[in-house]
């Protein structure tokens, strides 16, 4: 394996739920796109900030391409500006006083070939927006500028903090294209924080699932999210739309995506349901059954 990043860290997170440690150890192969998935407060953003050098760790070792970026034992700490890392922030962090082109030019190190600027403007399809200020751009356009700006310096590692979360489906899909294009064309190793399973399946080579500051699984998206396989029943998430009393039994109408599924259930279970409630439907021996979300023991935190 051609390892690019090796990371072994411990850091106390100060979350709304109190202090909890972020403890993580992983390696990442050069050129791969790794997704970090997990509930809020799991430490996803903190992990990216630690890799970028914006947040310090309590203990550990981080190295990229064999160069130590941070080592608490050796007391090495390469500052953010000297790490070969590009980062796209959740709020994009575009400089309001500079137009699109100037935002990209800002990132160009002195003495570097300026031809990368028009190349990125072309790649991100920003030709007609070069003179616009960030406040005049839509979310998707700002996203493209932020992505382009993070790549100007030709970083080895690209970090993306839920960059597509604020966008609608169509824009999301187009931006995923831009992202993949940039990842391949500039030979980047990329870490992407994402909540969206379609996005992870489309983009990521591998996923780490984080929960409460620890990794609870690593593998390809299919290995991580489709691991229920043949032993577990398949399950659908849905919302109770209607509860119909049919004498000895009840029929519950559950909306899953855009399909209405009728599920037979007992009066006892029906009494615990109300319209609008989120439930899971499992199918065992072709007989659909309703499972309550709180009984799912965090199996699905999608």
């Amino acid at each position: 394996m051609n390892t690019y990043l090796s990371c072994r860290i411990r850091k106390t997170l100060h979350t709304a739920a109190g202090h909890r440690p972020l403890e993580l150890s992983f390696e990442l192969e050069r050129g791969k796109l790794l997704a970090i998935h997990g509930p809020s407060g799991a430490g996803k953003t903190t992990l990216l900030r630690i890799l970028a050098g914006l947040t310090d760790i309590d203990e550990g070792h981080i190295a990229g391409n064999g160069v130590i970026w941070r080592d608490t034992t050796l007391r090495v700490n390469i500052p953010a500006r000297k790490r070969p890392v590009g980062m796209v922030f959740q709020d994009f962090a575009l400089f309001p006083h500079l137009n699109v082109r100037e935002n990209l030019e800002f990132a160009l190190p002195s003495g570097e070939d300026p031809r990368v600027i028009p190349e990125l403007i072309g790649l991100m399809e920003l030709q007609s927006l070069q003179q616009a200020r960030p406040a005049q751009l839509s979310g998707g356009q700002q996203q493209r500028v932020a992505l382009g700006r993070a790549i100007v310096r030709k970083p080895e590692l690209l970090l993306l903090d839920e960059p597509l979360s604020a966008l609608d489906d169509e824009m999301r899909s187009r931006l995923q294209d831009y992202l993949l294009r940039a990842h391949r064309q500039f030979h980047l190793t990329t870490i992407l924080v994402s909540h969206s399973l379609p996005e992870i399946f489309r983009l990521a080579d591998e996923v780490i699932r984080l929960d409460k500051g620890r990794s609870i699984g690593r593998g390809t998206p299919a290995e991580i999210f489709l691991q229920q396989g043949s032993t577990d029943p398949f399950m659908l998430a849905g919302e109770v739309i209607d509860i119909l009393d049919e004498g000895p039994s009840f029929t519950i109408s559950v909306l899953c995506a855009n399909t209405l599924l009728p599920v037979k259930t007992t009066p006892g279970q029906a009494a615990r349901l109300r319209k609008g409630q989120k439930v899971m439907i499992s199918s065992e021996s072709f007989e659909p059954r309703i499972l309550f979300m709180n009984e799912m023991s965090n199996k699905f935190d999608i």
Partner: protein
Amino acid sequence: MTDMAPIWLSFRLSLVTTAVLLLIAVPLANWLAHSRFRLKVVAETIISLPLVLPPTVLGFYLLLAFSPSNAFGQFLDRYLGLRLVFSFPGLVIASVLYSLPFMVNPLLAGFRALPSSLREASATLGKSGAYTLLNVLLPNIRGSLLTGIVLSFAHTMGEFGVVLMIGGNIPGKTRVASLALYDEVQSLNYHAANRYALILFASSFMILLLVYLLNHHFSKANPLP
């Protein structure tokens, strides 16, 4: 005919004070806004003290400190050849201390209102703290910068207690416009006093009007996205 020398002296003092304040206050406010130094709150308190302290108190202690009969004043006189009491450089130092909160506080508010991701983005793009300060932070707090400059200038124009204490009202040397106005009133020369008062009043009004107009302009020009 009104003696214009005090007016020009006030302008000169205000200009020099504002320039010195800019050099001191920009890095100071940047440090206060972003440092995690625990005693920062003490530094903020000291900087803001002239807002509530009678100017004569500050002037009195500076007079004592700079006096050649004291150790510090002797040191300045003997080793640096500086005699700050009753001199223009003394006025500048006193004015800088007295107007420090008028420059630092608007800058501090401006820096704190900027999202921290701007600084962080600049760092991940390979830029140093000083480069980020000059090319990212300051251009985005132009309104605060202008407010600080103008308030410091206007505040120095109107100084009385501090300059009287440390400058001593020497005609042509340390007699600024506000002192000249006071002198004319003391000599019951109300016509001349009125001229000084009108000039100070009009210049203060124009300066403040300019601040509000420009601030209005800046808040429209580059809003955060």
